[in-house]
């Protein structure tokens, strides 16, 4: 019988599953996340997968990873360094080792450490046989063998059996962290409803993994991470792309307008299209267009026809949509363009994250073509920002660019579900009144009337040529052009009156403000908390509105001696702020296709404020 295991209380843990693209690591990670969320921890995830669909087994570039940070308190990042790495093969070990701190635990599938796989991973020697892993807590488990053994009686083929091995790893990890296996068991049942042998096999292997932890001597310790003390409410785990999709469903409900999505698939934005295409019973129309240009122009058509129209894409797709965004600017039609940023330039690093499309979003069109730009800061924030983008678009009759990124899109976190009637009331009433109607007559916020074709007696024509004020007819008049160019600029600028002021966390003035935008929110928050724990006076602000900026931005910037702007680009927000406010902000940049680690920002804070780790 197994020895009684030691039980250790932890406040948080970071784990990473890594293996071949075909090993099911994304699924394993997602299951662990969902179970952990149900268990009540706060958590944040970071999937990281290669551009190849299923690169040849065992290769370095075929390694797929899923990192998860979970905790008994509020957390903000997927964790800087995994405490436990599950490495399903030598390539996974090789790729991920550099991210581990000494003392970390490594669980390896010894069955895959054969000559062939070692060679594929460029290992001259088996790292399990020399002292290259010295200082780590290496736990060797013949996962493949144990999986096969537990399925000795299964009718499945050898290949199919081997494919179940990720559930063994998952089972072990559940045991180590004391998670229930029931949620995954029931997920398996739904997922493979039509294949009972698969249900049987996966369930068996999951249990085998769990019991392996329980019964063998291999693991001496179990960890307990108590549920987090989150605000009361009902929660679900959402990724950024899911939250974005749900946000637009909510925007449709709250504006009272049918939702139309015109989109062309592109990583990492495709999941928004996939998700929304499930909502047919909400009357939502998803149109997979022949290209990005048709994606946005069909949406412009739908907007003209009176729908809440959106288009979703990533960097290269946004470039293709530039010309059409200009048309929406000129015709003043509401439209939301979601850009899930990825590594660039060009095709770049399609499955990696980056924030390098900010300047493209603000400036990437011909002529003076102002467009509001806003950005989500966490996976669940995507929900609210999708609603906010829809609000601005329909209230001001303008295209709006909503920026998210690959990290937010694929990462997930627990989300306290709001009640629909608590969401902003953004009901839209389209224009039907003949009295005084002119297509370019404006209301008090400078928005022109939105008339749905089909409305009697309001027939009118719009287009991409310059229009005369009020009447909207084609006009080549020089003075009118100048008037209209300035009017369009003013229309966007005045939105500053209708958005929240920039909030500063901690001291409102002082030595150092760390200000970010978009998906760096978590890492900045964590870094600032850590620095403050060390007694440093550092404040934080996060821009969700990039064009126009909140009205008090200048005041905030000038309230601190130093302003540090961490960005996953070469300093794009920095450029905008310098130009707008002539403030010498400091830029901290990282362009590795990966999110910031909190420690990277923390280090910079310490170096500015002369902290110890300097």
């Amino acid at each position, binding site marked *: 019988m197994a020895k009684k295991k030691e039980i250790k209380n932890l406040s948080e843990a970071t784990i990473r599953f890594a293996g071949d693209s075909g090993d099911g690591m994304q699924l394993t990670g997602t299951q662990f996340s969902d179970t952990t969320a149900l268990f009540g921890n706060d958590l944040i995830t970071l999937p990281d997968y290669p551009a190849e669909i299923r690169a040849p087994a065992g290769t370095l570039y075929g390694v797929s990873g899923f990192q998860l940070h979970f905790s008994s308190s509020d957390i903000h990042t997927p964790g800087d360094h995994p405490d436990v790495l599950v490495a399903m093969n030598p390539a996974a070990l090789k790729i991920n080792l550099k991210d581990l701190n000494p003392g970390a635990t490594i669980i390896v599938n010894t069955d895959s450490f054969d000559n062939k796989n070692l060679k594929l991973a460029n290992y001259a020697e088996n790292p399990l046989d020399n002292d290259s892993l010295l200082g780590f807590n290496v736990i060797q488990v013949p996962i493949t063998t144990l999986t096969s053994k537990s399925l000795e009686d299964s009718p499945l083929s050898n290949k199919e059996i081997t494919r179940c091995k990720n559930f063994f790893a998952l089972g072990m990890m559940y045991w180590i962290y004391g998670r229930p296996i029931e949620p995954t068991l029931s997920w398996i049942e739904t997922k493979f409803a039509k294949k009972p042998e698969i249900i049987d096999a996966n369930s068996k292997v999951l249990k085998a993994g769990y019991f392996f932890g329980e019964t063998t001597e291999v693991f001496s310790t179990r960890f307990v991470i108590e549920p987090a003390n989150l605000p009361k*409410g009902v929660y*679900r785990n959402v990724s950024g792309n899911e939250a974005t999709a749900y946000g637009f469903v909510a925007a449709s409900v709250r504006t009272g307008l049918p939702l139309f999505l015109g989109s062309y698939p592109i990583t990492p934005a495709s999941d928004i299209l996939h998700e929304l295409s499930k909502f047919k019973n909400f009357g939502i129309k998803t149109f997979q267009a022949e290209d990005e240009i048709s994606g946005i122009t069909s949406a412009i058509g739908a907007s003209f026809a*009176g729908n809440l129209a959106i288009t979703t894409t990533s960097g290269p797709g946004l470039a293709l949509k530039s010309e*059409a965004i200009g048309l929406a600017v000129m015709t003043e039609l509401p439209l939301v363009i979601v850009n899930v940023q990825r590594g660039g330039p060009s095709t770049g690093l399609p499955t990696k994250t980056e924030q390098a499309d900010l300047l493209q979003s603000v400036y990437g069109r011909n002529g003076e073509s102002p467009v509001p730009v806003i950005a989500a800061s966490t996976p669940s924030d995507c929900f609210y920002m999708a609603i906010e983008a829809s609000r601005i678009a329909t209230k001001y009759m303008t295209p709006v660019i909503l920026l998210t990124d690959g990290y937010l899109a694929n990462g997930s976190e627990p989300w306290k579900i709001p009640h629909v009637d608590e969401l902003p009331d953004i009901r839209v009433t389209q224009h039907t009144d003949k009295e005084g109607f002119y297509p370019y007559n404006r209301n008090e916020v400078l928005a022109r009337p939105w008339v749905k074709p089909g*409305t009697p007696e309001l027939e009118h024509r*719009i287009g*991409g040529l310059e229009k005369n004020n009020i009447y909207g007819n084609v006009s080549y008049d020089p003075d009118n052009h100048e008037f209209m160019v300035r009017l369009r600029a003013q229309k966007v600028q005045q939105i500053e009156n209708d958005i929240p002021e920039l909030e500063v966390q901690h001291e409102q003035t002082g030595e150092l403000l760390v200000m970010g935008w978009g998906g760096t929110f978590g890492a900045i928050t964590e870094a600032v908390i850590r620095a403050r724990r060390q007694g440093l006076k550092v404040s934080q602000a996060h821009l969700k509105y990039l064009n126009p900026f909140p009205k008090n931005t200048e005041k905030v910037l000038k309230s601190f001696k130093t302003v540090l702007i961490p960005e996953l680009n070469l300093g794009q927000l920095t450029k905008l702020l310098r130009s707008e406010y002539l403030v010498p902000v400091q830029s901290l940049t990282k362009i590795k296709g990966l999110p910031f680690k909190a420690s990277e920002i923390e280090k910079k804070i310490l170096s500015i404020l002369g902290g110890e780790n300097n």
Partner: protein
Amino acid sequence: MTNNIEQKEVKLTAKDFITDQDVRWCPGCGDYSILAQTQRILPELGIPKEKIVWISGIGCSSRFPYYMNTYGFHTIHGRAAAIATGVKLANPDLSVWVATGDGDLLSIGGNHFIHTCRKNIDLKILLFNNRIYGLTKGQYSPTSEKGKVTKSTPYGSIDYPFNPVTLALGSEASFVARSIDRDPKHLQTVLKRAAGHKGTAFIEIYQNCNIFNDGAYSLMTEKETKDDNVLVLEHGRPMVFGKNKDKGIIIDGTTPKVVSVGEGGTHSINDLLVHNESDTSVVLSYMLGQMSNSPEFPTPIGIFRQIFKPTYNDDMENQIKSIQGKRGTGDLEKFLFSGNTWEVR
């Protein structure tokens, strides 16, 4: 008519479709006739004015919507079909028409065109084919004949032209027709048939640009030559043409031929091919389409093909209805609070 656009007793006349904007085409431009014929047939469709939408791209022809007193949108170059698709899908109650040029639809807009045809989106597409870029002052277009001397081809172009009819057929369009600006009656008939079609209705209209490509179609429009150079397609009728109705088309294996008919001719009228718009094999319509590219044959005008298949927009509505029928209309609150949720108390 097979359309599901609302039709009611509306008493409209051509005048109701005229806007207060001056028509700005060059005097003598063929676009005037197309505008006039369209304004003439629209009142006959029984569709209220406000349910009609005209979408265009950029080009001389694309100014069309400004002159048509319905809802209208003069968009950007090449994107009319894609924008019209969005209009129709978002609001299938509308009768959506596209006015476009050979550059707009077939050069920069080629991709949207073939995909619209493929999807069978219920749009009426009027191609103003003047075989030239008018608005940019006279470069050759994808329908210009090879060897054409233009501003951008001072030594003659080296491109083979598209045949818009066969391109549309190759893209699976369900209604494909051709007419001529200078034949108002025929143009009106074809426009009305297109209006009645449910699905993508494509009409190539030969249009004279008297500034940059004058006389491009004179063989087919001038009194002396037109009868010998035009084959008017009529469903169920043998393919006869010629000033004296003394020529006809037969098929030999898979190859069409021109023969003489009637007195002194080699063939009788009964030997001739009979036009069948709804030939599902599409071979006949494709063969007729091919004839337009060839000096040995007359150029067919009329309806090459009309077949019936569900439209993309109807399928979209039906799919939604059927899912709503099965699963009930979506309830956001319910959705959000269902699935893998947990409560923190």
